[in-house]
C-alpha cells in the first residue's frame, strides 16, 4: 500500500470517526471531539494531496458501493493540488468551528454534515472515474445544502437561500452527469484514462461534453450567469461553512474545467479557450461590480468569489488558447497562474470569511453601514482581515499579487501579433483583469475601512469583543498563509507548474519565481529585503528625530468650529460606493426612492427626508424570474390533473389498467 492509498483510506476512517464523535459524544465535549476529528480528516486530505502533487501515486477501487461498477480513487498531480487546497482550508475551518459553533450550528447533524462535506470535497479531485467523481460530488452537494440549512428554524430567509443553492448545485450535478455520460458512452468506459484515449476533442461528442462539463463547473463555481446562489447561500450559512464553500468548494468548478480540458479532452479546439476567457472575464467584472456596491459584508465576499473564480477560469482559458496557438510557453505560465490564483483565493477568502464570522459573532451585525471602529476592540480580527483584504486587492507582498503578476506576464507576453485571434483576445483580457483589479482595490478599502476604522455606527459594533483563541488562531493562520505565499512563492509555483504539465518554471533566488518562457522573474523576498535595507536608514533617522522633538498634543478633530462626534457623519459603505454606482448605473440598475415629508408650511420647510436604495441582480430579474414564473405556470397546469380528488385518481388508475390490458391483449 502506497502513502497516497493509506491517506485515502485514512480519510474515510477519519470521516467515520468524526461522525461517531459528533453523534456519540456528550454535548459538552462534542465541539472539541468532532472538531478534532474533522481537523484530522482535513489534515489527512492535505497530506495526501501534497503527496499526490509531489508525484506519488496510489489507487483504490471500492467494489460493490454502486451496482454500476467500482469507484476508483487515484489522484493525479492536478487532483492532488485541489485535494491539498481543500484539506488546508478544511483544517483551518475545523479549528475555527470548535470555538465558533454554538446552538443549532453545534448540533449532531451539523457536525456530521461538516465531516461529510470535507470528505466529499477531498475525494472529488481524487476520483479517477466518472462514478467516483459524481458520487463524491453529490456527497459534497448534499452535505453543504444541509450545512446551509443549519439555522432555518430561527431565520426565515435561510430556507429560500438553501432552496436556491440546492437547485443550482443540482443543476451543476445534472450537467456534469450529462457531460460525463456523453463521454463514457462514446468511450464505452467510465475510467478517465479510457475516455482520454477514446474521444477526439474536436468531434461533436467532445464539443457537447465540453459545453456540459464547463457549464456544470461554472454553476458550481458561481460563474456569471449561474452565480445567483452565491450571494444568497453564503450570507445565510454559518461563517465557517461559508469559508469552506467559498474557498474550497467553488474551486471544484474550476477543477472540472481543468479536468475536462487537460486530462479528459486534451488539446481541444480554439473556441474552448475563447469561450472560457469570455466566461471568466464576464464573471470577474460582474462579480466585482456587485461586490463593490454591496453593503452586506458576507454578500460582498460572496460576489468577490465570483470575481476570483472568474479570473482563474480566464487564466485557464488563456492557457488553453495559447497552447493551441503556437505559444505553449506563455500558455504554461497562464495555467500555472490559474492554480496560483485559486490557492491565493483560498487563503485570503478563508481569512476574510472567518474574520467576517468573528465580526458577526461579536456584534450581531453583517451590514457594513452599521459596523465601524472594530480595529480598536478586535485587533486580531482586524489585522487578519486587513492582510487578507490586501491579498484580495493584489497588493505586493501578498499571494494575490504574485498570482495576478504571473497571469499578466502570460497575457502580455502571449500576445503575438502574428496570430489575429490571440492579438485580439489578449489585450481585451488584460483590460478586463486591470479593471477588475482596480475595482477590487476599491471594494477592499471599502470593506476594511467601514467595518474596522472610524467609529462604531451601532450599539452592536460599539459593544464588540475579540473572539476565542481557536477562532483567532485559524484567522491568523490563514492571513499568515496569504503573506507567506506572497513572500516565498517559488517552490509551490514550481510544483503547481508540474500539475498542469508546464515545464521550466522553477524557484530562483530567495524562493522567488522564474518564468523562463516569458523572460520574467519575481523574487518578492529579495525585493522586500532590498526595499527594507534602502528605506531602513531613512526610517531610523526619522524615528530618532521624532523621539528628540516630541511635541504631541491630543486635540479634538477639527470640525470647522462645530464638533464631529456623530458616527453618522462618517462615510458609509453605501456612500463610499455611490460614485461607482452612478458610473455603472446602466449595468447595476439601482432602485432609488427619495421621500420628502413637508411640514405643511410650504414646500421649503421639510420635516423629514427618507432615502432608500435597493440593488437587485439584473440577471436574476431578467432571466431567472421569468423562467421561474413559467415553471410556476406549468405547475399550475399540472395541478388540474392532480387536484386531490380521490375519484379522479381512481379513474386514472382504472383507465391505466384498461390501457395496459388492451395493450397486453393486442
Amino acid at each position, binding site marked *: 500500500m502506497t502513502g497516497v492509498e493509506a491517506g485515502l483510506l485514512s480519510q474515510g476512517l477519519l470521516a467515520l470517526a468524526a461522525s461517531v464523535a459528533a453523534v456519540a459524544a456528550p454535548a459538552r465535549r462534542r465541539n472539541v471531539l468532532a472538531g478534532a476529528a474533522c481537523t484530522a480528516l482535513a489534515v489527512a486530505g492535505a497530506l495526501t494531496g501534497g503527496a499526490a502533487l509531489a508525484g506519488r501515486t496510489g489507487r483504490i477501487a471500492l467494489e460493490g458501493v454502486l451496482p454500476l461498477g467500482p469507484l476508483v480513487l487515484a489522484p493525479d498531480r492536478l487532483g492532488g493540488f485541489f485535494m491539498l487546497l481543500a484539506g488546508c482550508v478544511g483544517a483551518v475551518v475545523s479549528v475555527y468551528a470548535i470555538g465558533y459553533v454554538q446552538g443549532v450550528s453545534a448540533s449532531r447533524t451539523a457536525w456530521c454534515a461538516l465531516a461529510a462535506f470535507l470528505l466529499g470535497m477531498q475525494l472529488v479531485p481524487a476520483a479517477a472515474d466518472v462514478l467516483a467523481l459524481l458520487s463524491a460530488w453529490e456527497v459534497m452537494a448534499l452535505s453543504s445544502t444541509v450545512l446551509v440549512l443549519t439555522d432555518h428554524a430561527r431565520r426565515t430567509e435561510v430556507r429560500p437561500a438553501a432552496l436556491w443553492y440546492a437547485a443550482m448545485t443540482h443543476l451543476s450535478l445534472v450537467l456534469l452527469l450529462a457531460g460525463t455520460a456523453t463521454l463514457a458512452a462514446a468511450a464505452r468506459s467510465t475510467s478517465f484514462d479510457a475516455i482520454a484515449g477514446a474521444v477526439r476533442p474536436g468531434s461533436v461528442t467532445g464539443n457537447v461534453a465540453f459545453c456540459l462539463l464547463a457549464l456544470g463547473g461554472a454553476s458550481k463555481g458561481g460563474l456569471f450567469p449561474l452565480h445567483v446562489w452565491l450571494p444568497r447561500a453564503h450570507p445565510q450559512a454559518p461563517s465557517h461553512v461559508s469559508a469552506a464553500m467559498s474557498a474550497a468548494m467553488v474551486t471544484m468548478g474550476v477543477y472540472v474545467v481543468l479536468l475536462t480540458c487537460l486530462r479528459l479532452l486534451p488539446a481541444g479546439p480554439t473556441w474552448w479557450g475563447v469561450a472560457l476567457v469570455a466566461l471568466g472575464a464576464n464573471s470577474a467584472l460582474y462579480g466585482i461590480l456587485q461586490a463593490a456596491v454591496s453593503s452586506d459584508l458576507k454578500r460582498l465576499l460572496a460576489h468577490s468569489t465570483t470575481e476570483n473564480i472568474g479570473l482563474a477560469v480566464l487564466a485557464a482559458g488563456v492557457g488553453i488558447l495559447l497552447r493551441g496557438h503556437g505559444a505553449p510557453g506563455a500558455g504554461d505560465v497562464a495555467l500555472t497562474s490559474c492554480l496560483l490564483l485559486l490557492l491565493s483565493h483560498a487563503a485570503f477568502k478563508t481569512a476574510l470569511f472567518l474574520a467576517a464570522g468573528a465580526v458577526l459573532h461579536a456584534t450581531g451585525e453583517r451590514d457594513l453601514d452599521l459596523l465601524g471602529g472594530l480595529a480598536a476592540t478586535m485587533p486580531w480580527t482586524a489585522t487578519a482581515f486587513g492582510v487578507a483584504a490586501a491579498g484580495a486587492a493584489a497588493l505586493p507582498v501578498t499571494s494575490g499579487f504574485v498570482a495576478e503578476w504571473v497571469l499578466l506576464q502570460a497575457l502580455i507576453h502571449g500576445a503575438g501579433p502574428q496570430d489575429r485571434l490571440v492579438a485580439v483576445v489578449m489585450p481585451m483580457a488584460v483590460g478586463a483583469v486591470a479593471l477588475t483589479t482596480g475595482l477590487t482595490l476599491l471594494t477592499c478599502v471599502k470593506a476594511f475601512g467601514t467595518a474596522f476604522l472610524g467609529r462604531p455606527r451601532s450599539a452592536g459594533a460599539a459593544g464588540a469583543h475579540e473572539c476565542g483563541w481557536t477562532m483567532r488562531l485559524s484567522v491568523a493562520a490563514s492571513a499568515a498563509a496569504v503573506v507567506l505565499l506572497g513572500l516565498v512563492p517559488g517552490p509551490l509555483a514550481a510544483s503547481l507548474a508540474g500539475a498542469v504539465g508546464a515545464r521550466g518554471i522553477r524557484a530562483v533566488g530567495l524562493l522567488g519565481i522564474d518564468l523562463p518562457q516569458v523572460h520574467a522573474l519575481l523574487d518578492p523576498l529579495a525585493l522586500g529585503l532590498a526595499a527594507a535595507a534602502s528605506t531602513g536608514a531613512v526610517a531610523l533617522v526619522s524615528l530618532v528625530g521624532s523621539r528628540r522633538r516630541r511635541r504631541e498634543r491630543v*486635540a*479634538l478633530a*477639527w*470640525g*470647522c*468650529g*462645530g*464638533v464631529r462626534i456623530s458616527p453618522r457623519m462618517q462615510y458609509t459603505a453605501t456612500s463610499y460606493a455611490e460614485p461607482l454606482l452612478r458610473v455603472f448605473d446602466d449595468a447595476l440598475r439601482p432602485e432609488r426612492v427619495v421621500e420628502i415629508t413637508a411640514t405643511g408650511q410650504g414646500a421649503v420647510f421639510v420635516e423629514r427626508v427618507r432615502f432608500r436604495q435597493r440593488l437587485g441582480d439584473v440577471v436574476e430579474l431578467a432571466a431567472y424570474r421569468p423562467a421561474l414564473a413559467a415553471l410556476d405556470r406549468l405547475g399550475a397546469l399540472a395541478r388540474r390533473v392532480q387536484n386531490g380528488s380521490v375519484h379522479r385518481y381512481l379513474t386514472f388508475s382504472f383507465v391505466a389498467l384498461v390501457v395496459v390490458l388492451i395493450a397486453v391483449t393486442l
Partner: protein
Amino acid sequence: MSARRLIALILRTGRVAEPAPPAPEPLAAAAGLRGSVQVRHVDAGSCNGCEIEVAGAFGPVYDAERYGARLVASPRHADALLVTGVVTRNMAEPLRRTYEATPHPRLVLAVGDCARNCGMFAEGYGVVGPVSSVVDVDVEVAGCPPSPDAIVAGLRRLTGR
C-alpha cells in the same frame, strides 16, 4: 488669457502697491514665530464692513503679504487668528474651538471697534461681548471699520517686518 497678454498687462499696469511705511514696533509675544505668519480670519459676528477692509488689506494696493502675512483656510495651518465683529452667542463656542485648534504659539488680532469693545452693538441681546471676553487678544486695531493700512500695521506687529 494667454501668457503673452498676461505679461503685457503686468508690464502695462506696473506696480500699484503703496510705498511701505516705517515698520511699527514688533510684538514681544510674536518673537516665537519664524518665517511668515499664517493668519486665519474668523468672523465672530461682524457687519462685514471689516471684511471689506481686510480684503483691501490683502489686495494689491496695501499688499499685506509683502510683510509676510498670509491668509490660510484652516486654523490647523495658522499662527494667528484675525477676528472681526462682536462675538455673538452662536459664534462664541466656534471661536473658542478655533482658538483651541490653532497650534502654539498662537496670537489673536482683534480688528475693528466691535471686536475691541462691542462698538455700536454693545448690550445687544445676542452679543456675548468683545473678543477679549472669549479668547486672549494680543493686538487690537481700532476703527469702524479700520482702514486697510491700520490692519496692515496691526499685521506688521505680528510679522515684525
